[in-house]
């Protein structure tokens, strides 16, 4: 997928699920039939313009009421089994925001790969266990995306909501500011270390229908794929990495391509691959961007 094409998808992923303009104009929530659909994106359903339900909010609601969220789990696992984490890389509005923030000139740092395990702790703790025990949607209360497109618009639009501001609101604002700030220095910190939706989808990366394939015959191990990767991984070392967002930025290199689980030889019969090592230079321009 081309760089511009992914940006267009990300804009659509941010705009289309939040296109209920009447909600902003009248300070109301959309309550039509589309709200029964869990969007496979981190998109707050308390946003006045949201058309779909947040999958994480839905999972928590069922845990709060002491029920197993079959519909939510089924929806997310069906998406994960089909595309893995591709929705994180190509559609998620909060991921898009982090991608844009990283473009700011700032001190750049890498975070260790083991940070990924925090998102499984967040998924198990804040989405399933603590809501079940306390009957409160704790992840939604702290979610920075919820603060950005749910909390802040409501505080701006509605005087009654403004009068209900307590200490928790400032905690939420602090969490949002923390991730906005760190996103200028670290590639997608929220997606890599916190996002419970990404944690669910990452479980399917190894066995999803869409797969990333790597050709060892043509790869020069130049490492340019890591420079352009939005989560700082090397797809040539582990192309089924649970951190991989399937954004396909790295497929501009002829040694990497999108394939399906049904393709046994995605690059053709070994030794007869049309790709050449010099083709890896195709990433040079992207890495410099």
């Amino acid at each position, binding site marked *: 997928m081309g760089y511009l094409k992914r940006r267009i998808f990300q804009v659509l992923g941010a705009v289309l699920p939040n296109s209920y303009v009447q909600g902003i104009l009248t300070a109301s*929530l959309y*309550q039509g*039939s589309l*709200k*029964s659909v*869990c969007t496979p994106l981190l998109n707050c*359903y*308390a946003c006045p313009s949201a058309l779909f*339900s947040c999958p994480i*909010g*839905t999972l928590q*609601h*069922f845990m709060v009421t002491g*029920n197993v*969220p*079959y*519909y*939510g*789990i*089924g*929806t997310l*696992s*069906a998406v*994960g*089994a*089909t595309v893995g984490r591709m929705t994180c890389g190509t559609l998620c509005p909060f991921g898009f925001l982090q991608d844009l923030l990283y473009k700011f000139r700032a001190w750049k740092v890498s975070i260790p790969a083991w940070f990924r395990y925090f998102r499984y702790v967040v998924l198990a703790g804040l989405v399933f266990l603590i809501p079940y025990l306390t009957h409160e949607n704790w992840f939604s209360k702290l979610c920075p995306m919820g603060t950005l497109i749910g909390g802040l618009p409501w505080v701006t639009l509605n005087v009654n909501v403004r009068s209900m501001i307590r200490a928790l609101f400032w905690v939420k604002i602090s969490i949002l500011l923390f991730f906005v700030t760190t996103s200028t220095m670290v590639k997608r910190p929220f997606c890599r270390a916190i996002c419970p939706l990404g944690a669910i989808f990452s479980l*399917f990366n*190894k*066995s*999803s*229908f869409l*797969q990333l394939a790597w050709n060892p015959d043509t790869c020069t191990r130049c490492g340019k794929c890591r420079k352009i990767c939005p989560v700082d991984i090397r797809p040539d070392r582990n192309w089924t990495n649970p951190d991989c967002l399937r954004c396909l930025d790295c497929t501009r290199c002829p040694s990497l391509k999108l394939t399906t*689980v*049904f393709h*046994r030889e995605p690059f053709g019969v070994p030794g007869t691959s049309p790709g050449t090592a010099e083709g890896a230079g195709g990433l040079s321009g992207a890495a410099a961007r």
Partner: protein
Amino acid sequence: MQGRLIAFIVTAAASASILAYGIFREEIGEVMFNAAML
């Protein structure tokens, strides 16, 4: 690759079954109710 194919078929079948069971339990209505109560 054969292992991945089997894993995909198993996960796809399992996720479709879980989703169908959720729809059968009329959880869609519960999701809409939750969204309306925000």
